[in-house]
């Protein structure tokens, strides 16, 4: 089988400091995205474990798989979880979730936890969409804009280039800076046209790093347009898979002249984390504490 360069590493993480048995509220969030799925489990609002896997063909199966992976090796079992909230593209298909909440609300709530209450603008760059979200100090959404119609400016666009250039997706950012001089951005917006433009540049003798630089800055430019429409207020944070691509992140920062906050956790878990925080609040409400 050919190497699949776009395939990013899947993994799980769990805290060694938290004993879930002492926890009062165990809440979970599952984010079934179009490309990747995440599960986050909180013990009294503290991050206990999470996992990040590729979404399979069915949402219910993907949700269960990512939940099983998060629990793996923790000796916590799913029946001990008090409340699960589903979010993301496949949120209505999470069979074990008591409620579904939109990913916009969850991302803002999750970013508020991950980056702190000073975050006012979040750029979520997902596998098949891109959202610019404004929120208040509680992580409540005040405005948002979304592109889910066009692959330009989404993870899928980057995956197409990873395959075209035979560069593993996690190396794309670093390699895009290995150029003597920043080239002009690729002129096509459409990923399909950008791809044929890139093939033409490679034939002209451009090294792949230079093509990558040209595509990364075109992508940055595209999402900055979306951000400008919603107006960026500090602090600014980037979530989703592309937040791990420094080639895009640094070019966005340069164009905006604003630095994004440094992430403390995996940037892809923001949606699931927000869902788990909503789940905790819903338990408190049920118990009459909220």
């Amino acid at each position, binding site marked *: 089988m050919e190497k699949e360069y776009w395939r990013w590493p899947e993994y799980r993480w769990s805290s060694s400091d938290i004993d879930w048995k002492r926890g009062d509220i165990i809440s979970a969030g599952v984010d079934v995205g179009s490309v990747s799925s995440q599960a986050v489990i909180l013990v009294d609002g503290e991050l206990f474990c999470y996992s990040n896997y590729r979404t399979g*063909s069915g949402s219910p199966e993907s949700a269960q798989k990512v939940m099983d992976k998060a629990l793996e090796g923790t000796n916590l079992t799913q029946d001990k979880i008090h409340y699960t909230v589903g979010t993301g593209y496949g949120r209505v298909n999470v069979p074990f979730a008591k409620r579904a909440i939109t990913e916009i609300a969850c991302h803002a709530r999750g970013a508020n936890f991950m980056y702190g209450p000073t975050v006012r603008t979040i750029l979520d760059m997902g596998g*098949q969409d891109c959202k610019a979200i404004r929120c208040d100090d509680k992580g409540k959404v005040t405005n948002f804009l979304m592109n889910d*119609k*066009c*692959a330009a400016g989404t993870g*899928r*666009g980057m995956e*197409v280039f990873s395959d075209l250039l035979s560069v593993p997706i996690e190396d794309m950012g670093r390699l895009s800076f290995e150029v003597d001089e920043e080239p002009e951005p690729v002129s*096509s*917006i*459409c*990923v*399909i*046209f950008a791809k044929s433009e890139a*093939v*033409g540049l490679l*034939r002209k003798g451009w090294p792949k790093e230079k093509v990558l630089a040209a595509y990364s800055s075109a992508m940055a430019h595209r999402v900055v347009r979306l951000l400008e429409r919603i107006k960026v207020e500090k602090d600014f944070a980037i979530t989703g898979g592309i937040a791990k691509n420094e080639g895009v992140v640094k070019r966005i920062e340069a164009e905006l002249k604003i630095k994004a906050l440094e992430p403390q956790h995996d940037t892809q878990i923001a949606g699931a984390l927000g869902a788990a925080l909503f789940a905790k609040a819903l338990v408190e409400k049920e118990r009459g504490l909220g």
Partner: protein
Amino acid sequence: MNVVGIDCGAKFVKALILKDDKVKAKISVLSGFGQKAAAEEALDKALEEAGLKKEDVAHITATGAGKEEAKFARSTITEVRADAKAVNFLFPSVRTIIDVGAEEGRAIKVNEAGKVVDFAINEKCAAGAGTFIETMARALEVKLEEMGPMSLKSQKSVPMNAQCAVFAESEVVSLIHAKHAKEDIVRAVHDAITDRIASMTRRIGVEKDVALVGGMALNVGFVDSLKRDLMQELIIPEDPEYSCALGAAFAAQEKAKGG
């Protein structure tokens, strides 16, 4: 008097030789990645077919996205004006021209004199151009030339949600996994591109008669979908992909006559 019209398209370069309003030769060459070389090749082949030498040609006009690459041309004309000239000559009753090529889609409104009154272009998004069908054919493992005839065999349309060609590629794969008949998926693909072309055309207004030109006019599946969507008969010239080259040749003829 012999003149040449050359259309440097994204996928093919077309050269057409005109003598006193009559087509003497027409040739299509793959653009590949060297439009300049393809343009020269197309010109040489067309001259050969017509039994002419370069010095027998009074004027050459270039059009198409890569018109600057035809270095030997003495003038250029926009694709919109070229289409208008060609279609007005062939079918003076046409008021709306739809031209769908490999990487562009155009809708043009002309008056009875063949003058362009209004137009709309998509050159930004593959979902509204012929490339869309090519990308989907690859995902479906169907030969490009079989896409049209296969679409006509469909009994029902399956809904397609994706607008973007990249997203549609994955959607098509899931439709195959969901065991939908291939011809029904192919029909959905044609309906999807039609939806984009028809709404672009409606933006300038659909006035009778309506002509369809460009390489996509050769795709019977697309023609069928577009007729249904616009609820209009479509006038399609013989060799519709040469529309712009023919229009450019008319422009060359005018120039040669001192126009």
